[in-house]
């Protein structure tokens, strides 16, 4: 039985992989406090979704390129998101002196109180 499973890797396994990667990214977004770590976790989630798109596209038809094309544009969007996010990270670092989300929030509250 195990021999058969190893010989025929279907899109199902790719989607399980993608779901695992998505949840790792989600955990990173929720639990990590570093802004750069959060941005990289968002990139993991983008990658997981791209993997799902490509696996479905290769599963449905070999001549359909829609999923592949969507992935190209999704990659461009994710690069944009990262660039803008890093820019804001740098601005926050200049303003508050840290990239820890909790510290930034507490400092922001202190400034607003005064």
């Amino acid at each position, binding site marked *: 039985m195990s*021999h058969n499973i*190893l*010989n*025929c*890797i279907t*899109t199902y*396994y*790719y989607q399980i*992989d993608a779901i*695992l*990667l998505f949840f*790792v*990214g989600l*955990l*990173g977004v929720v*639990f*990590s406090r*570093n802004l*750069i*770590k959060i*941005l*990289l*976790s968002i*990139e*993991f989630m983008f*990658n997981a979704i*791209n*993997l799902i798109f*490509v*696996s479905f*596209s*290769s599963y449905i038809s*070999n*001549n359909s*390129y829609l999923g*592949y*094309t969507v*992935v*190209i*544009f999704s*990659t*461009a969007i994710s*690069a*944009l998101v*990262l*660039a*803008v996010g*890093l*820019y804001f*990270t*740098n*601005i926050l*670092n*200049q303003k508050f002196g840290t*990239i820890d989300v909790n510290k930034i929030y507490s400092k922001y509250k202190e400034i607003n109180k005064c």
Partner: protein
Amino acid sequence: MSINSFFFILFSVLMCISSIFSLLSKKIIYTLLWAMVVFLMVSGLFLLLGAKYNSIVQFLIYVITIPVLVGVSIMMIKQNSEKRIIMLNSFWKIIGVAILVILIGEFFSLNKDVFEIVKACFVFVNPYSDLDSFAQNILERYPILLLEFGLGLIITVIGLSNHES
């Protein structure tokens, strides 16, 4: 076990492990390095699925461009003198990794049979996906979308460079 399934298991296991390590590592630079491994493995999975063009784009953007971008921003954020001392201590480690990479490269270049075997693993994957037809498909069906994304990138770059913080 076929070669396809072997590479799938290798890529997926490495991807999951390195994604967890990237979240658990305390230093940001190690997070970036583990994230690079994750992106590389996703690129390999794209190749196994037959999306050669996506694999190339993934490699160029995620494994080369984004680490440079994030690395530069980490350098801008961390401007401590202590880091330089740590970098000097890790000089020999970097030289060791470089020698290892050169040795692996020599191994692949000298043994042509090994290179041919690795090449054959990736060629057989999906004969239907054609790189030229995919590129043609993008240019014929989605030219305006392509132009819009190019414009979006240009506007972002101009906006970020013109802003005075």
